[in-house]
């Protein structure tokens, strides 16, 4: 869906990032209309890259955009993807990013944390709202998942 650079260009950028000593953070958006096989291929490519962090986004179909009519991803498929990405990337920081509220809801968010997610972006996103940070912090406490670092902007 990206037209500004090719897959190979991005791959070589990430290699350069790693070689220069920076931490590699690379994830993607699920629910763009890809097949399960393509999702698995993506997870395998990430495993080869072995990034420090993998933000996992779920498409929030925006009206008026080319993918505006794409259905919201099935929460069960999203949870399966989380588990599969965790198995493919056993040591990475697997981060909840955009779209989790709309795709997974509250119960799914909890299940994802139990199923492989170990980092969360809290609060609002760039142009849409997220649930209150306090709600996620409370959930992490309930699940006895200690908070290692909270952005100082909060």
């Amino acid at each position: 869906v990206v037209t500004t650079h090719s897959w190979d260009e991005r791959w070589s950028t990430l290699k350069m990032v790693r070689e220069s000593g920076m931490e590699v953070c690379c994830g993607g958006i699920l629910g763009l209309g890809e097949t399960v096989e393509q999702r698995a291929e993506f997870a395998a490519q990430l495993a080869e890259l072995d990034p420090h962090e993998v933000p996992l986004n779920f498409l929030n179909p925006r009206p008026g955009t080319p993918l505006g009519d794409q259905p919201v991803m099935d929460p069960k498929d999203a949870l399966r993807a989380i588990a599969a990405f965790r198995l493919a990337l056993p040591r990475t920081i697997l981060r909840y990013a955009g779209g989790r509220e709309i795709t997974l809801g509250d119960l799914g968010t909890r299940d994802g944390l139990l199923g492989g997610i170990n980092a969360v972006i809290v609060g609002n996103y760039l142009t849409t709202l997220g649930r209150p940070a306090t709600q996620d912090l409370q959930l992490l406490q309930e699940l006895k998942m200690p908070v290692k670092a909270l952005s100082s902007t909060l």
Partner: protein
Amino acid sequence: MSGTLLHVFCARALDLEPPRYCITCGRRMKVQVVPTGWTAECVQHGVSTGGTASPSAS
């Protein structure tokens, strides 16, 4: 899927949106979202602000 059920999803999606249009005059507003809140400014009717999506029972 029934129309009513579709609007359940609409309501849930709407909760994750800052206002984009002025409720007084319908003008498109200038909207900025930051991690802890949002501001929306109508050129005619001024600024309104808010926080995150409403907390849900979980």
